[in-house]
C-alpha cells in the first residue's frame, strides 16, 4: 500500500489522526508519519496490527524524544506481509507525570523498549505488567536522558 492508501485506511477508522508532512530541508525517509493522540494510541495500534490489509506485525522500535516543552514517543512499524512501513509520533504534554497506554499486549517487542523509555525518560506506560527500571540500578533517582537532568555525584565519581 502506498502512503496515501495507508493514510486513507487509518483515517477511515480514526479521523483525528493527521499526517505530519515533510518540511523543507528535513532529511527523512518516505514513510508515512502520523500524529496520534496519546489516549488513542492503544486502539490505533490494535487496529493496524489486526486489520488484514494493513497487518503491521513488526514493531521495529519504540523510542522517545525530549523537546523541552513536551515529550514525544516514536513508534516505527513494518509489515512483513505487505512490506510497508509506518511511523507514529505521539506528543505527551505532561512533564511531571507523563503517562501513555502500553502497546505490549499487541507487540511483545514493546516490553523492554517501554521499560527503557521509562528508565531513561520517565514516561510511564499504563497497562505494562512490569514497569520498572531496566538499565540503571533499581535505586537510581531521576531520569538521565531528560534535558533538565542534573547528575548527582556519588561515591563512584
Amino acid at each position, binding site marked *: 500500500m502506498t502512503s496515501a492508501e495507508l493514510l486513507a485506511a487509518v483515517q477511515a477508522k480514526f479521523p483525528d489522526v493527521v499526517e505530519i508532512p515533510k518540511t523543507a530541508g528535513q532529511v527523512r525517509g518516505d514513510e508515512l508519519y502520523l500524529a496520534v493522540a496519546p489516549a488513542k494510541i492503544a486502539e490505533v495500534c490494535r487496529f493496524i496490527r489486526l486489520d488484514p490489509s494493513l497487518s503491521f506485525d513488526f514493531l521495529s522500535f519504540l523510542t522517545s524524544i525530549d523537546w523541552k516543552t513536551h515529550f514525544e514517543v516514536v513508534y516505527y512499524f513494518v509489515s512483513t506481509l505487505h512490506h510497508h512501513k509506518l511511523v507514529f509520533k505521539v506528543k505527551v504534554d505532561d512533564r511531571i507525570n507523563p503517562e501513555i497506554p502500553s502497546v505490549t499486549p499487541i507487540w511483545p517487542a514493546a516490553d523492554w523498549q517501554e521499560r527503557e523509555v521509562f528508565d531513561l525518560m520517565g514516561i510511564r506506560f499504563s497497562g505494562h505488567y512490569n514497569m520498572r527500571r531496566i538499565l*540503571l*540500578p533499581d535505586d537510581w533517582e531521576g531520569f*538521565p536522558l531528560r534535558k533538565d537532568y542534573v547528575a548527582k555525584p*556519588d*561515591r*563512584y*565519581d
Partner: protein
Amino acid sequence: MGILLDKGPLYVEHLPGGSIFLTAADSFINWARKSSIWPLTFGLACCAIEMMASYASKYDFDRFGVIPRPTPRQADLMIIAGTVTKKMAPRIELLYHQMPEPRFVISMGSCSNSGGPYFDAYSVCKGVDKVIPVDVYVPGCPPRPEALQQGVLTLQRKIQAYSMLAAAKRKAEPVA
C-alpha cells in the same frame, strides 16, 4: 594472616642462616605464584575482545601459566576489562572479596583505569580503583594483546618482589 607468616619471619631472621632461608623461600614461593597466575576474567566491554585475543593462539597466554577460571574461588587475579558502570561496581566489589588471598587486580583499558572516554557519563564509575585496590594499570583503548601480556609480566615482577620479612615488619609496627 596466618600466625606463622605474621610472626615467623621476625624470629627466623635472627637465627643463624635465617635471612638466607627467608629469601630463598621467598624466591621459591614467589616463583611458584607468578608462574601460575589464574585470572578471573571479568570482560565487561570492548577490552574483553582484546583479552580473548590475548588468550587465543596468536598471543597465547597459556605460556605464562595463565589459565582463565570462571569462578573467583579458584582465581588469584582479576582482570577488569571494560567500562565499569555504577550498576556493576558493587558486584565487582563482592567478587573481589570472594577471591582467596593472595589476590591481584589488573585494570585493563582506559575505562577501568579512570572512566576513559565515558568520563562525563552519569552512569560510569570513574575508574575501578574507586571500588577495589588495583595492582597494575594497562593503558590503551583497547590495549593490544601484547600490552595486556606486558601488564601480566609487570604483575609477575611485582609478585617476585614480595618479601615475607618486609611484610611481617610492616604488619608489626604501627602505621606511621
